Protein backbone atom coordinates (compact mmCIF):
# COMPACT_ATOMS: atom_id res chain seq x y z
CA UNK A 1 0.00 0.00 0.00
CA UNK A 2 1.38 3.42 -0.93
CA UNK A 3 0.75 6.88 0.47
CA UNK A 4 -2.07 8.66 -1.32
CA UNK A 5 0.23 11.50 -2.32
CA UNK A 6 2.62 9.05 -4.03
CA UNK A 7 -0.06 7.12 -5.91
CA UNK A 8 0.47 7.19 -9.66
CA UNK A 9 -2.58 5.06 -10.41
CA UNK A 10 -5.25 7.51 -9.28
CA UNK A 11 -2.98 10.56 -9.47
CA UNK A 12 -3.39 11.79 -5.91
CA UNK A 13 -7.14 11.18 -5.81
CA UNK A 14 -6.48 8.69 -2.93
CA UNK A 15 -9.46 6.57 -3.89
CA UNK A 16 -7.98 3.58 -5.67
CA UNK A 17 -7.01 0.15 -4.35
CA UNK A 18 -3.28 0.95 -4.43
CA UNK A 19 -3.50 3.73 -1.88
CA UNK A 20 -6.65 2.98 0.10
CA UNK A 21 -8.63 0.09 1.56
CA UNK A 22 -12.39 0.18 1.44
CA UNK A 23 -14.52 -0.86 4.39
CA UNK A 24 -18.28 -1.28 4.12
CA UNK A 25 -20.87 -1.31 6.84
CA UNK A 26 -24.27 -2.77 6.08
CA UNK A 27 -26.30 -3.75 9.14
CA UNK A 28 -30.04 -3.92 9.78
CA UNK A 29 -31.74 -4.52 13.11
CA UNK A 30 -34.47 -7.13 12.79
CA UNK A 31 -34.91 -8.13 16.42
CA UNK A 32 -36.80 -6.38 19.21
CA UNK A 33 -33.74 -5.55 21.27
CA UNK A 34 -31.24 -2.81 20.50
CA UNK A 35 -28.45 -3.89 18.18
CA UNK A 36 -24.91 -2.66 18.76
CA UNK A 37 -23.06 -2.00 15.52
CA UNK A 38 -19.33 -2.27 16.18
CA UNK A 39 -15.99 -2.38 14.38
CA UNK A 40 -16.56 -6.12 14.03
CA UNK A 41 -19.30 -5.35 11.48
CA UNK A 42 -16.94 -3.49 9.16
CA UNK A 43 -16.25 -5.58 6.07
CA UNK A 44 -12.79 -5.08 4.63
CA UNK A 45 -11.93 -5.22 0.94
CA UNK A 46 -8.39 -6.36 1.79
CA UNK A 47 -7.95 -9.17 4.27
CA UNK A 48 -4.54 -7.92 5.33
CA UNK A 49 -6.01 -4.64 6.56
CA UNK A 50 -8.48 -4.47 9.43
CA UNK A 51 -9.27 -2.23 12.41
CA UNK A 52 -6.56 -2.43 15.10
CA UNK A 53 -8.98 -3.67 17.77
CA UNK A 54 -10.28 -6.41 15.45
CA UNK A 55 -6.72 -7.56 14.79
CA UNK A 56 -6.02 -7.64 18.54
CA UNK A 57 -9.28 -9.47 19.19
CA UNK A 58 -8.41 -12.12 16.66
CA UNK A 59 -5.37 -12.97 18.76
CA UNK A 60 -7.32 -12.97 22.03
CA UNK A 61 -10.08 -15.05 20.43
CA UNK A 62 -8.09 -18.21 21.01
CA UNK A 63 -8.26 -17.61 24.74
CA UNK A 64 -11.77 -16.43 25.48
CA UNK A 65 -14.41 -15.78 22.87
CA UNK A 66 -16.79 -14.23 25.39
CA UNK A 67 -14.46 -11.33 26.10
CA UNK A 68 -14.72 -10.04 22.58
CA UNK A 69 -16.58 -6.90 21.79
CA UNK A 70 -15.75 -4.40 19.08
CA UNK A 71 -15.74 -0.64 19.43
CA UNK A 72 -19.28 0.72 19.31
CA UNK A 73 -20.14 2.73 16.20
CA UNK A 74 -23.93 3.11 16.52
CA UNK A 75 -26.94 1.48 18.17
CA UNK A 76 -29.93 0.42 16.05
CA UNK A 77 -33.57 0.03 16.98
CA UNK A 78 -35.91 -2.44 15.29
CA UNK A 79 -36.17 -1.83 11.53
CA UNK A 80 -33.38 0.72 11.53
CA UNK A 81 -30.39 0.11 9.33
CA UNK A 82 -27.03 1.64 8.53
CA UNK A 83 -25.13 1.48 5.27
CA UNK A 84 -21.87 3.20 4.62
CA UNK A 85 -18.53 3.06 2.87
CA UNK A 86 -15.23 4.02 4.52
CA UNK A 87 -11.77 4.53 3.09
CA UNK A 88 -8.68 3.71 5.12
CA UNK A 89 -5.60 5.63 3.97
CA UNK A 90 -1.97 5.60 4.95
CA UNK A 91 -0.48 8.78 6.31
CA UNK A 92 2.01 10.28 8.75
CA UNK A 93 1.54 12.08 12.04
CA UNK A 94 3.14 15.24 10.69
CA UNK A 95 0.23 15.54 8.24
CA UNK A 96 -2.50 14.77 10.76
CA UNK A 97 -2.41 13.53 14.36
CA UNK A 98 -4.91 10.76 13.53
CA UNK A 99 -2.04 8.93 11.88
CA UNK A 100 0.26 9.22 14.86
CA UNK A 101 0.65 5.75 16.41
CA UNK A 102 2.36 7.08 19.55
CA UNK A 103 0.33 8.32 22.51
CA UNK A 104 3.37 9.50 24.45
CA UNK A 105 7.06 9.45 23.64
CA UNK A 106 9.28 10.88 26.32
CA UNK A 107 12.78 10.46 27.66
CA UNK A 108 14.39 11.12 31.01
CA UNK A 109 17.97 10.98 32.16
CA UNK A 110 18.76 7.95 34.24
CA UNK A 111 19.24 9.12 37.83
CA UNK A 112 22.34 8.17 39.76
CA UNK A 113 21.38 7.84 43.40
CA UNK A 114 24.04 7.50 46.08
CA UNK A 115 23.07 6.99 49.69
CA UNK A 116 25.55 8.04 52.37
CA UNK A 117 25.37 4.74 54.26
CA UNK A 118 27.61 5.92 57.05
CA UNK A 119 25.27 8.82 57.83
CA UNK A 120 22.22 6.63 57.21
CA UNK A 121 23.32 4.29 59.98
CA UNK A 122 22.98 7.12 62.51
CA UNK A 123 19.21 7.18 61.86
CA UNK A 124 16.75 5.14 63.87
CA UNK A 125 14.57 2.58 62.11
CA UNK A 126 11.58 4.96 62.38
CA UNK A 127 13.55 7.86 60.94
CA UNK A 128 14.68 5.70 58.03
CA UNK A 129 11.10 4.71 57.26
CA UNK A 130 9.91 8.31 57.59
CA UNK A 131 12.56 9.41 55.14
CA UNK A 132 11.75 6.61 52.68
CA UNK A 133 8.06 7.51 52.82
CA UNK A 134 8.78 11.14 51.95
CA UNK A 135 9.40 10.15 48.33
CA UNK A 136 6.19 10.40 46.28
CA UNK A 137 7.33 7.44 44.18
CA UNK A 138 8.73 4.21 45.54
CA UNK A 139 12.47 4.67 45.07
CA UNK A 140 13.91 3.44 48.37
CA UNK A 141 13.22 0.60 50.77
CA UNK A 142 14.79 -1.15 53.74
CA UNK A 143 16.52 -4.40 52.94
CA UNK A 144 14.86 -7.10 55.01
CA UNK A 145 18.07 -8.95 55.77
CA UNK A 146 20.64 -6.20 56.33
CA UNK A 147 18.16 -3.47 57.49
CA UNK A 148 20.03 -1.08 55.21
CA UNK A 149 18.24 1.59 53.20
CA UNK A 150 18.70 0.84 49.53
CA UNK A 151 17.56 1.99 46.11
CA UNK A 152 14.89 -0.37 44.83
CA UNK A 153 13.78 1.51 41.72
CA UNK A 154 15.96 4.36 40.50
CA UNK A 155 13.82 4.81 37.38
CA UNK A 156 10.84 5.77 39.52
CA UNK A 157 12.62 8.91 40.75
CA UNK A 158 10.83 11.93 39.27
CA UNK A 159 13.51 14.54 40.07
CA UNK A 160 11.15 15.99 42.67
CA UNK A 161 13.96 16.38 45.27
CA UNK A 162 11.51 15.56 48.07
CA UNK A 163 13.95 13.15 49.73
CA UNK A 164 16.71 15.75 49.65
CA UNK A 165 14.47 18.35 51.31
CA UNK A 166 13.29 15.77 53.81
CA UNK A 167 16.87 14.83 54.75
CA UNK A 168 17.66 18.49 55.35
CA UNK A 169 14.49 19.01 57.36
CA UNK A 170 15.36 16.01 59.51
CA UNK A 171 18.81 17.44 60.14
CA UNK A 172 20.73 15.03 57.92
CA UNK A 173 21.89 17.04 54.91
CA UNK A 174 23.91 15.01 52.43
CA UNK A 175 22.07 11.81 53.30
CA UNK A 176 21.61 11.21 49.61
CA UNK A 177 23.07 12.70 46.44
CA UNK A 178 21.17 12.44 43.21
CA UNK A 179 22.48 13.40 39.80
CA UNK A 180 21.28 12.83 36.26
CA UNK A 181 23.51 10.62 34.13
CA UNK A 182 23.76 12.47 30.85
CA UNK A 183 25.10 9.53 28.87
CA UNK A 184 22.18 7.24 29.61
CA UNK A 185 18.48 7.85 29.38
CA UNK A 186 15.20 6.07 29.71
CA UNK A 187 12.96 6.37 26.70
CA UNK A 188 9.29 5.70 27.26
CA UNK A 189 6.95 5.06 24.34
CA UNK A 190 3.24 4.45 24.77
CA UNK A 191 1.32 3.32 21.70
CA UNK A 192 -2.29 4.05 20.80
CA UNK A 193 -2.89 0.42 19.87
CA UNK A 194 -2.46 0.81 16.12
CA UNK A 195 1.17 -0.34 16.29
CA UNK A 196 3.29 -2.00 18.94
CA UNK A 197 5.65 0.37 20.77
CA UNK A 198 8.74 -1.55 19.63
CA UNK A 199 7.52 -1.25 16.03
CA UNK A 200 7.14 2.50 16.48
CA UNK A 201 10.72 2.82 17.74
CA UNK A 202 12.12 0.72 14.89
CA UNK A 203 10.10 2.69 12.32
CA UNK A 204 11.33 5.95 13.83
CA UNK A 205 14.95 4.83 13.50
CA UNK A 206 14.32 3.81 9.88
CA UNK A 207 12.69 7.15 9.10
CA UNK A 208 15.67 9.00 10.60
CA UNK A 209 18.04 7.01 8.39
CA UNK A 210 15.86 7.74 5.37
CA UNK A 211 15.95 11.45 6.13
CA UNK A 212 19.74 11.38 6.53
CA UNK A 213 20.00 9.52 3.25
CA UNK A 214 17.94 12.22 1.56
CA UNK A 215 20.27 14.94 2.83
CA UNK A 216 23.37 12.94 1.89
CA UNK A 217 22.11 12.45 -1.68
CA UNK A 218 21.04 16.07 -1.84
CA UNK A 219 24.50 17.16 -0.76
CA UNK A 220 26.20 14.95 -3.35
CA UNK A 221 23.97 16.41 -6.03
CA UNK A 222 24.50 20.00 -4.91
CA UNK A 223 28.27 19.55 -4.99
CA UNK A 224 28.26 17.78 -8.36
CA UNK A 225 26.50 20.71 -9.97
CA UNK A 226 29.08 23.04 -8.53
CA UNK A 227 32.30 23.40 -10.60
CA UNK A 228 34.11 24.93 -7.64
CA UNK A 229 33.84 21.68 -5.79
CA UNK A 230 36.76 19.88 -7.40
CA UNK A 231 38.64 20.11 -4.15
CA UNK A 232 35.84 18.34 -2.27
CA UNK A 233 35.83 15.45 -4.69
CA UNK A 234 39.60 15.17 -4.56
CA UNK A 235 39.38 14.75 -0.83
CA UNK A 236 37.13 11.80 -1.41
CA UNK A 237 34.12 13.52 0.20
Amino acid sequence: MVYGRDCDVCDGDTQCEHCSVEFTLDVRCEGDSTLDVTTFDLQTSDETVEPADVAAARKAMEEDEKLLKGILIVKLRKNQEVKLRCLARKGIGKDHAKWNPAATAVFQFEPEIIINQQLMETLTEEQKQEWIDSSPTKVFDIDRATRQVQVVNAEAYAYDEEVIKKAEAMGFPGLVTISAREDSFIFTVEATGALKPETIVLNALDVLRMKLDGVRNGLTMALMEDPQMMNYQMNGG
Partner: protein
Amino acid sequence: MTNAPDRYERFVLPEGVSKVTRIKDTRITNAATFEVQREDHTLGNLIRMQLHRDPEVLFAGYKAPHPLEYKINFKVQARDTTNPETVFRRAIDAVDTEIADLRKAFTEELARPRDQGNFY
Protein backbone atom coordinates in the same frame (compact mmCIF):
# COMPACT_ATOMS: atom_id res chain seq x y z
CA MET B 1 -12.26 30.29 -0.98
CA THR B 2 -9.25 29.48 1.04
CA ASN B 3 -5.60 30.34 1.32
CA ALA B 4 -4.70 27.12 3.09
CA PRO B 5 -1.28 25.86 2.00
CA ASP B 6 -1.12 22.63 0.05
CA ARG B 7 -1.50 19.57 2.24
CA TYR B 8 1.88 18.00 1.56
CA GLU B 9 3.73 21.28 1.07
CA ARG B 10 5.28 20.94 4.53
CA PHE B 11 7.12 17.68 4.03
CA VAL B 12 7.20 16.71 0.35
CA LEU B 13 9.97 18.21 -1.74
CA PRO B 14 8.30 20.07 -4.64
CA GLU B 15 9.38 19.21 -8.17
CA GLY B 16 12.41 21.10 -9.40
CA VAL B 17 13.57 22.08 -5.92
CA SER B 18 16.96 20.81 -4.71
CA LYS B 19 17.06 19.03 -1.36
CA VAL B 20 20.36 20.67 -0.45
CA THR B 21 21.82 23.96 -1.61
CA ARG B 22 25.27 25.12 -0.61
CA ILE B 23 26.02 28.79 -0.17
CA LYS B 24 29.69 29.62 0.28
CA ASP B 25 30.46 32.20 2.88
CA THR B 26 32.35 35.08 1.33
CA ARG B 27 33.37 36.80 4.55
CA ILE B 28 34.42 33.93 6.78
CA THR B 29 37.13 31.58 5.55
CA ASN B 30 36.37 27.91 5.08
CA ALA B 31 32.69 28.37 6.01
CA ALA B 32 29.48 27.52 4.21
CA THR B 33 25.73 27.48 4.67
CA PHE B 34 23.77 24.39 3.71
CA GLU B 35 20.11 24.95 3.07
CA VAL B 36 18.14 21.73 3.50
CA GLN B 37 14.60 21.68 2.17
CA ARG B 38 11.64 19.98 3.92
CA GLU B 39 13.48 19.10 7.10
CA ASP B 40 13.09 20.49 10.61
CA HIS B 41 14.58 20.32 14.11
CA THR B 42 14.50 16.52 13.93
CA LEU B 43 17.51 16.47 11.63
CA GLY B 44 18.75 19.96 12.42
CA ASN B 45 19.52 19.28 16.05
CA LEU B 46 20.81 15.76 15.34
CA ILE B 47 23.35 16.84 12.73
CA ARG B 48 24.43 19.93 14.63
CA MET B 49 25.19 17.95 17.77
CA GLN B 50 27.25 15.52 15.72
CA LEU B 51 29.18 18.41 14.10
CA HIS B 52 30.03 19.66 17.59
CA ARG B 53 31.74 16.35 18.33
CA ASP B 54 34.07 16.79 15.35
CA PRO B 55 37.44 18.32 16.32
CA GLU B 56 37.84 19.68 12.80
CA VAL B 57 34.71 21.79 13.15
CA LEU B 58 35.25 25.34 14.39
CA PHE B 59 31.61 26.40 14.33
CA ALA B 60 28.36 24.62 13.63
CA GLY B 61 24.84 25.86 14.07
CA TYR B 62 21.45 25.53 12.46
CA LYS B 63 18.23 27.46 12.35
CA ALA B 64 14.72 27.07 11.10
CA PRO B 65 14.31 30.54 9.59
CA HIS B 66 10.50 30.69 9.67
CA PRO B 67 7.71 28.24 10.57
CA LEU B 68 6.17 28.68 7.13
CA GLU B 69 9.42 28.14 5.26
CA TYR B 70 9.87 24.41 5.31
CA LYS B 71 13.65 24.33 5.45
CA ILE B 72 16.60 24.54 7.79
CA ASN B 73 19.96 26.25 7.39
CA PHE B 74 23.22 24.86 8.71
CA LYS B 75 26.18 27.16 9.13
CA VAL B 76 29.48 25.30 9.29
CA GLN B 77 33.02 26.54 9.64
CA ALA B 78 35.82 23.98 9.39
CA ARG B 79 39.49 24.06 10.32
CA ASP B 80 41.86 24.74 7.42
CA THR B 81 42.88 21.07 7.39
CA THR B 82 39.53 20.28 5.75
CA ASN B 83 36.41 22.00 4.36
CA PRO B 84 32.77 22.51 5.42
CA GLU B 85 31.45 20.03 2.84
CA THR B 86 33.63 17.21 4.17
CA VAL B 87 32.75 17.73 7.81
CA PHE B 88 29.05 18.11 6.99
CA ARG B 89 29.09 14.88 5.04
CA ARG B 90 31.06 13.19 7.81
CA ALA B 91 28.47 14.26 10.40
CA ILE B 92 25.63 12.79 8.33
CA ASP B 93 27.50 9.49 7.97
CA ALA B 94 28.36 9.36 11.68
CA VAL B 95 24.77 9.93 12.81
CA ASP B 96 23.63 7.35 10.30
CA THR B 97 26.08 4.77 11.66
CA GLU B 98 25.05 5.54 15.22
CA ILE B 99 21.36 5.05 14.41
CA ALA B 100 22.17 1.81 12.58
CA ASP B 101 24.06 0.56 15.65
CA LEU B 102 21.21 1.58 17.95
CA ARG B 103 18.73 -0.22 15.71
CA LYS B 104 20.84 -3.36 15.77
CA ALA B 105 21.15 -3.30 19.56
CA PHE B 106 17.41 -2.65 19.89
CA THR B 107 16.53 -5.58 17.63
CA GLU B 108 18.87 -7.87 19.56
CA GLU B 109 17.32 -6.81 22.85
CA LEU B 110 13.83 -7.48 21.47
CA ALA B 111 14.87 -11.00 20.50
CA ARG B 112 16.10 -11.69 24.03
CA PRO B 113 13.48 -13.33 26.29
CA ARG B 114 12.50 -10.62 28.74
CA ASP B 115 11.89 -10.78 32.44
CA GLN B 116 8.10 -10.55 32.66
CA GLY B 117 8.08 -9.79 36.38
CA ASN B 118 9.98 -6.57 35.92
CA PHE B 119 7.24 -4.87 33.92
CA TYR B 120 4.57 -2.72 35.39
